């Protein structure tokens, strides 16, 4: 009995020492070495890919999506989008600062809503469908609301946006809630509105979007996309210099 207790204690001692030694190797030396190399070779990227505008002011990260909203008015719960600027994807899942109240850190997160969320079943066909007025907060409602807003915001006199023209990314939230990109189709859809609000020719804004459209990496990786922050930075310069 005494012997087995002693053996167990010895074994746990060895286990603890193994953990501590490996913690030094993988938890201290390894991250420090990688940080050293990363800061030496790619300092910009290792520190968050910050981008500056023409005046040299940091305006965020090219990797982190931002909101382009008007200041919150009295009585409003969520601010209205500032339609002068290209708008990002909806971010219904982006949480608030729910865990730690010390900071107002940006928090990443998705809605986690299913494709059935808010749907009703048609007893005749057995199929599920989104009703015209789905329960508030459900994915059916979020998509319907986003679609109505996209149509309302982007329809200019003589050009009505049709539901069929709206790409999926314009009405859905991303996984991180910080998606820095929109699809070229969604950027294209916003061109007329942005041109009108900024008093620019449509063709000029169209060219700006094309200049900021990235193709697939190596031609086949990922999807074509437009970085909204970079596009808006270029747009601001264009407006200032017109």
């Amino acid at each position, binding site marked *: 009995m005494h012997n087995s207790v002693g053996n167990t204690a010895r074994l746990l001692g060895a286990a603890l020492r193994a953990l501590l030694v490996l913690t030094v190797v993988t*938890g201290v030396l390894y991250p420090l070495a990688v*940080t050293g190399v990363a800061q030496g070779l790619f300092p910009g990227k290792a520190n968050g890919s910050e981008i500056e505008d023409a005046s040299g002011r940091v305006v965020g990260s090219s990797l982190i999506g931002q909101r382009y909203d008007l200041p919150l008015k009295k009585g409003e719960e969520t601010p209205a989008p500032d339609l002068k*600027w290209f708008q990002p994807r909806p971010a219904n899942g982006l949480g608030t600062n729910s865990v730690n109240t010390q900071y107002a850190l940006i928090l990443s997160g998705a809605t986690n809503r299913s494709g059935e969320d808010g749907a009703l079943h048609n007893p005749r066909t057995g199929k599920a469908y989104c009703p015209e007025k789905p329960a508030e907060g459900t994915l059916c409602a979020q998509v319907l609301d986003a679609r109505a807003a996209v149509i309302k915001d982007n329809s200019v006199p003589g050009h009505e946006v049709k539901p069929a023209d709206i790409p999926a990314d314009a009405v859905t939230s*991303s996984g991180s809630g910080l998606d820095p990109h929109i699809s070229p189709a969604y950027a294209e859809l916003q061109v007329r509105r942005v041109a009108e609000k900024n008093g620019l020719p449509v063709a000029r804004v169209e060219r700006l979007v094309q200049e900021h459209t990235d193709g697939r990496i190596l031609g086949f990786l990922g999807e074509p996309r437009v970085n909204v922050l970079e596009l808006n930075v270029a747009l601001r310069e264009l407006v200032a210099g017109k």
Partner: protein
Amino acid sequence: MSSELAGLLQLLALIAALALAYRPLGDYMARVYSSDKHLRVEKWIYKGIGADPDAEMRWTAYLRGVLAFSAVGVLFLYLLQRAQGVLPGSLGFVAIDPDQAFNTAASFVANTNWQSYYGEQAMGHVVQTGGLAVQNFVSAAVGIAVAVALVRGFARSRTGELGNFWADLVRGVVRILLPLSVIGAVALVACGAIQNFAGIHEVGQFMGGSQQWNGGAVASQEVIKELGTNGGGYFNANSAHPFENPNALSNLFEIFLILLIPFALTRTFGRMVGSLKQGYAILGTMAGIWLLFTGLMLWTEFAGHGPAFELAGGAMEGKETRFGIAGSALFSVATTLTSTGAVNSFHSSNTGFGGGIDLLGMQLGEIAPGGVGSGLYGMLIMAVIAVFLAGLMVGRTPEYLGKKIGTREIKFAACYILVTPALVLGFTAVAMALPTPGNSMTNAGAHGFSEILYAYTSGANNNGSAFAGLNADTQWFNSTIGIAMLLGRFLPMVFVLALAGSLAEQQPVPASAGTLRTEKPLFTGLLIGTIVIITGLTYFPALALGPLAEGLAS
């Protein structure tokens, strides 16, 4: 180019990269675990541990090493989180509550990385880098060590000895995981993943004002999170967060890292048992299932079934623009067929069938190709069962790799396959029957049931991904999922090592005309059939209540 074609090309590029790495890495790992030389740094480490790396261990001693090391790991990580409030380098974050600290400690030691916390808002540098990331390395090395011990059980005869746990653990970290991680981490930073020790700082915004970021050793943690099939994200959004997975190239690279070691271990297995063909048969089984699941997932996600997705014009909810549907579907299958559980899109927002594929992938026991080490030993257990079933059909004593599969061996294998279903179905049933756990569901009905089934499946199979709609940070879920993760990791290891010890003692039987040729495609077919039957019979009723009901309705 259409998105579908681009997706197919990405899949082909992934297969090509895995095929290129297969032979060199598999052979290298076989040498690592067969060599009797020690590197100088390893000798220092053994001195620090106070262990003799050349002392052979019987299965009981090997198991005691695994359990002692893991128990100490749980306790250390628990205390580290509880002490966070007074540790330096914690960014001012407070101590983690006891139930959540237990859950997280169990989760990372069990190679599960289920997370009921928000990384960027709860864990400081010390806990993330000095605690969680360390377990990413060592829990993966423990998994590989146990798999190697089982392979030695097949390869050795008339000895009960399975190698030395401390040597296998240290070599896995020093010679395999660390070098690959250093290269991979730098590659990820080159793509845009962050790697710094900045505190919480303000960064200007386009519309004025500022946003708050926390820095961190993200790339170095991201790479081992995928390579060690761990899955615990630095940020809440895991690999969907642009700082963890900045573009489509890093995305494909991360999928490659997830699958790299589990597939290559089949080559290691073939080398160590002295027949590469036996390794190819196992590889064929794993790759077949993986390709089938990937194809189905691509199809259902591109089809975008589900009323809200049809309304939106595509299943882009919870997916990032830069990855698109193909990059998300490939990741989703790789992470659930291994024990990784990292996500780059949110599985709760997959189509009904897509979510079902994720669930089924984990319920297969994560053996195609499975977690590092755990995938190989899980698949070898299935092979033992398949050989046994074949033996029953022709009425002769089954044998596998020259070892008789007798009563003792089949008992261990049977116990192994019973553990996880018992945990998953038992805990799910209790959670559904009790009044309060159900309050954690985000979605109602069949999808809500799937959330809870998914949570226990993910925990007991040591996956760690979530149908994240479930609010899992309650005392009930923290405690029960924590227990499911520990039992789901270490009980199977007991049976694997017991089986290994039993096999290693045997005298090999020479192959005869009546021996089932386990290196032939016929056996691969039999093995896939066995897996499907066992999993199907176990989980079909539960799947019918969740994803199947949902998929058929839409």
